[in-house]
């Protein structure tokens, strides 16, 4: 079983994005607050087990366009963030959550992933602060935008 750090969380997220959407990310120097100031959509998903965890995903409009276009096979400017933003971060939460369950749980473990749900700005801010004190987070960027993923105990 893997202990989740900021570094391996970033690697796991980057690898998943590369596979699903051909999006190549680099670690960003931005703070979580800077990402949240621009981020358009946030989502949360629970990893239910003993112990349980939460994964949150927050993405800027440019990042949403890059991921959604990579998955749907179109150009980033073809993606309407108002239409696709929530679904994109929700699916990212689902995918990253699934990857983390694979890392955290043994095959005999009953850990299961919940359903993603949308977070508002205030809820996302609370999760980000909680991850800063008792969890892990990673901020990745592409040419078009930024993504923040937080991992914390539930």
């Amino acid at each position: 079983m893997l202990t989740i750090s900021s570094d391996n969380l970033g690697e796991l997220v980057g690898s998943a994005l590369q596979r699903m959407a051909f999006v190549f990310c680099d670690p960003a120097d931005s703070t979580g607050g800077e990402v949240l100031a621009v981020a358009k959509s946030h989502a949360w998903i629970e990893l239910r087990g003993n112990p349980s965890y939460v994964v949150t995903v927050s993405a800027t409009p440019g990042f949403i366009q890059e991921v959604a276009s990579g998955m749907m096979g179109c150009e980033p400017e073809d993606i309407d963030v108002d239409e696709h933003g929530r679904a994109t971060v929700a699916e990212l939460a689902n995918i990253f959550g699934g990857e983390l369950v694979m890392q955290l749980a043994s095959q005999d473990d009953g850990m299961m992933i919940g359903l993603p749900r949308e977070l508002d700005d205030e809820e996302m801010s609370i999760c980000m602060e909680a991850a800063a004190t008792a969890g892990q987070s990673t901020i990745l960027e592409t040419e078009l935008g930024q993504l923040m993923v937080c991992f914390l105990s539930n």
Partner: protein
Amino acid sequence: MNYRILIVDDSPLLRATARRAVLQAGAAPSQIREACNGQEALAALREELADIVLLDLNMPVMDGFQFVEEKIKDPNLAAVRVALVTTEGNQKRLARMTAMGVEHYLRKPFEPEELRALVADLFGSQ
């Protein structure tokens, strides 16, 4: 190709991704339908059968496990083949699906080519 496909996923993004892969594998656009959960999928199949269902497991209302349990109770749906496209990686839960007749499995995150290949394989073995 004249296969009827039903894509079952609560994520519109994944449904769009899957639709693209199915089209690239040679399906006709008119033969592809979508459902947001297991309950909608059962209703869609009872209205018009599909040859292949691409099924997510983690969905609201009725999840993929419940869908497969309901499907095998209905003899009219016996010929419908199911392929899982899911974040689920637990071998025990996947074995339960295999025991209920689910033959194919692709774990998210997948490369688009892997999904296209899965669909092409399903078409080829139909």
